[in-house]
């Protein structure tokens, strides 16, 4: 019997349907209002980080709106058709998607305390993430070299702000990844460390979601 069935009063909601039990002949809800213990730290930390990520997505949506408004304002300079190389973008997309997958493997490995899965998954995530970043920086440097830097036009300002902001997130994510590897290595699979691994996984998957929007709105629509 789990703690829940025993009526320990855990859990945020009482939605398991008709959880009324008979105590001494009178029916009362299993969880009276205000009678619940707070959720575990893992739930609260995960939920709080989810709220942060959603606010991050809201920030990105402002950059997306800016980009969409300014996408035709090229000031006589090069537009998306002239600049974007879809082969590179496809490789970047594949790298980020694979890194999301390997990050999931690392998450499983951390919970199951499988060192090979955790460290292997994190290492692959780092390699794919760094590969993504390398291609992106290469692309940016090439654009600036051909006179299509962020100062060239409103379109390019918006482009570098939006895609660059995602790139900064990936960079910070890679640093965080290394930190998590070091923490698990030094302190083991402690509950507080595992909560951080959970948050890192959420962060990394969210970066991939934002990239889906970027390669659709910026690259595919811009080059097509």
């Amino acid at each position, binding site marked *: 019997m789990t703690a829940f069935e025993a009526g320990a009063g855990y859990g*945020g909601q009482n939605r398991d349907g008709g959880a009324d039990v008979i105590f001494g002949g009178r029916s009362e809800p299993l969880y009276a209002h205000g009678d619940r213990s707070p959720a575990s730290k*893992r739930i609260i930390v995960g939920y709080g980080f989810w709220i942060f990520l959603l606010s991050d997505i809201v920030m990105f949506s402002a950059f997306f709106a800016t980009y969409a408004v300014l996408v035709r304002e090229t000031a006589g300079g090069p537009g998306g058709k002239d600049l974007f190389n879809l082969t590179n973008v496809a490789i970047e997309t594949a790298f980020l998607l694979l890194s999301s997958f390997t990050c999931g493997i690392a998450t499983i490995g951390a919970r199951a305390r499988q060192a090979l899965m955790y460290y292997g998954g994190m290492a692959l995530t780092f390699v794919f993430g760094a590969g993504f970043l390398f291609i992106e920086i290469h692309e940016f440097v090439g654009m600036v070299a051909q006179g299509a830097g962020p100062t060239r036009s409103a379109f390019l300002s918006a482009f570098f702000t939006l895609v660059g902001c995602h790139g900064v997130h990936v960079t910070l994510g890679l640093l965080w990844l290394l930190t998590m590897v070091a923490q698990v290595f030094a302190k083991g699979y402690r509950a507080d460390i595992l909560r951080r691994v959970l948050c890192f996984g*959420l962060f990394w998957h969210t970066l*991939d979601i934002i990239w889906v929007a970027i390669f*659709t709105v910026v690259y595919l629509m811009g080059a097509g």
Partner: protein
Amino acid sequence: MSRTDQETILDHGDAAPGDEPAGRHEVAEGLLGYLIGLFLAALITAVAFFIAGTNLVWGPSIPLALVVLAIAQIGVHLVFFIHITTGPDNTNNVLALAFGVLIVFLILVGSLWIMSNLSNNMTPMQMG
């Protein structure tokens, strides 16, 4: 039993986003979920890149198709990678997500609407 597993049992009525679904501690099962997600996401991405560069579909429909595919792929990521479900333990996560989507929608549609209205009402500028 490890502390995390105990927490999962105690949190029967709630789930953290990104966490492995409760009662699914088998490594193989968890792996299968990520594999399905990877397969679906790769499929949708491939279709999106194909559609963007093809002449086989009616041109003006391409942007809309790309948006639909992107939303579908974001859904795949949410379900298989972030583990947002419709279960009762995920109500808080889904509500937060719904509010985030509402704000994103307002910012995007509001900006595009107002700015296109503004540029329609501008007097044409003297070029050169």
